[in-house]
């Protein structure tokens, strides 16, 4: 099923890439535009640091590390599944039905829907900031810390992907409520770009235990930077991101199946 899904995703995404290339000028424009739009968040942080030397006790390179990890993970998830927010619209206009008569997993088909390479802009700026941050932070790099970075990026992408899928499942029930999803995806990404010490403890607790976005960067970054995490966590929590990611994906998959089953029993 998974292999089938990846294959179908590749086929459909390829078609959309070719479609996008038919308007070449517009394509180039939107890639650059996407890079700029998504980079604005970091420009905001730079502007803040033109006025202060630290925020919540974290220095610019440290915050850049948070930003780079979150933006890269989110960028990957957005590249792969970012069009799930058009699902509600597809259900409303009936074109979702077309996907259900094809011999391919629906999630893969919806995920690849309107796939656009311009979203590489977001990943690119995330990787650039991450690269700078890794070079600029004052850290005693150990083998474990070095290895942790790529693992966290991949796990973070999986966690954000799970949020996208759960949001898609929610749209089955509230087809006009695609924007709620933005609060958790784009909102989550914005939240994670700032250090946890900035936020109230309750919010940090919620983001650690309920919607475990903290494992995208906060928890492992606190370990890499040897900073205390605002709420008590066991030492192994820094390495728990892959586990959390697997858990999130399983729950999101369940939610998606429930949503799809509900669609097929209630229709549009």
């Amino acid at each position, binding site marked *: 099923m998974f292999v089938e899904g990846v294959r179908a995703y590749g086929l459909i995404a390829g078609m959309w890439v070719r479609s996008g290339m038919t308007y070449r000028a517009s394509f180039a424009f939107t890639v650059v535009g996407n890079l700029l*739009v998504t980079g*604005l968040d970091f420009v905001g942080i730079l*502007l803040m640091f033109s*006025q202060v030397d630290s*925020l919540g006790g974290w220095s610019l390179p440290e915050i850049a590390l948070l930003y780079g990890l979150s933006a890269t993970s989110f960028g990957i998830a957005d590249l792969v599944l970012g069009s799930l927010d058009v699902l509600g619209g597809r259900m409303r206009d009936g074109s979702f039905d077309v996907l259900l008569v094809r011999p391919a997993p629906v999630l893969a088909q919806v995920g690849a829907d309107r796939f656009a390479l311009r979203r590489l802009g977001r990943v690119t700026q995330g990787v650039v900031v991450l690269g700078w941050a890794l070079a600029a932070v004052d850290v005693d790099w150990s083998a474990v810390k070095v290895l942790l970075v790529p693992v966290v990026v991949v796990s973070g992408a999986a966690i954000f992907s799970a949020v996208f899928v759960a949001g898609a499942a929610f749209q089955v029930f509230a087809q*006009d409520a695609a924007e709620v999803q933005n609060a958790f995806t784009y909102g989550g990404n914005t*939240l994670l770009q700032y250090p946890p*010490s900035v936020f*109230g403890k309750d919010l940090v607790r919620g983001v650690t235990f309920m919607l475990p976005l903290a494992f995208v960067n906060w928890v492992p970054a606190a370990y890499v930077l040897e900073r205390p995490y605002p709420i008590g966590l066991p030492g192994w929590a820094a390495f728990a991101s892959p586990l959390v990611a697997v858990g999130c994906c399983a729950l999101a998959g369940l939610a998606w199946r429930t949503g799809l089953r509900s669609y097929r029993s209630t229709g549009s």
Partner: protein
Amino acid sequence: MGSARLYLAVAVGGFRRYASYRVATAAGVFTNTVFGLILVYTYLALWEERPGLGGYDQAQAVTYVWLGQCLYATLAIQGGGAEKDLMERIGTGGIAVDLYRPVDLQLWWLAGDVGRAGFQLLGRGVVPFVFGSLLFPMALPAEAAAWAAFAVTLLLAAVVSFGIRYLAALSVFWLMDGRGIGQVLMITGVFFSGMVLPLNAFPDGLGDVVRVLPWAAQLQVPADVLMGEADVWGAFAFQAAWAVALLAAGRLLQSAATRRVVVQGG
């Protein structure tokens, strides 16, 4: 008089059209509230580090955040108001029909957009703002005159916001595709309006520039008027000057575009 009633009807139509998207509005309220919460904490940390940054105290910084969430959809700061529909009309060629209607094209779209803004303010903007004021100490005026001035500045802000987006939409007559310009609207709107950081907290030099651009009339000026940080008449004059300049530029571009359509034969 008859035409005033026409544009009023258009505005009411704009209001009602957006009022019919109830679930989407509720979703938007939720999202604006979440973003407000995140931003409030980051601003509080920033003002903790630099008390009095940009002339604001913490309560004022908090007020600024929630006002930003309140006006985000109201003023279509990242786009998505009347200009989106207008771009589509131009793209599909339907605009040729509009040009032959016995109405003023610019006023027509302005009326519709003001109606939309009215609904977005009441339906989508007020709730996050009230929510913020219940959870965090805010710097809100007690006297009615300040709120009246705020209402005037909001209306002017709506016209300036429309003026910017109308120009952008008309560019589709030449560009043929609205996606690129839409992205430019988004970047400039978010950054120069002060959604990322209040314009008065920008570093010198850059700050001096952004504070005189038209986008400053959208969020920074209304915020300053509300919190008594600006000379009210000076603020009105600034907004009105940009409103007039943008609308005039819009007229110029509109007549150039009309000639273009006529020459091409629609």
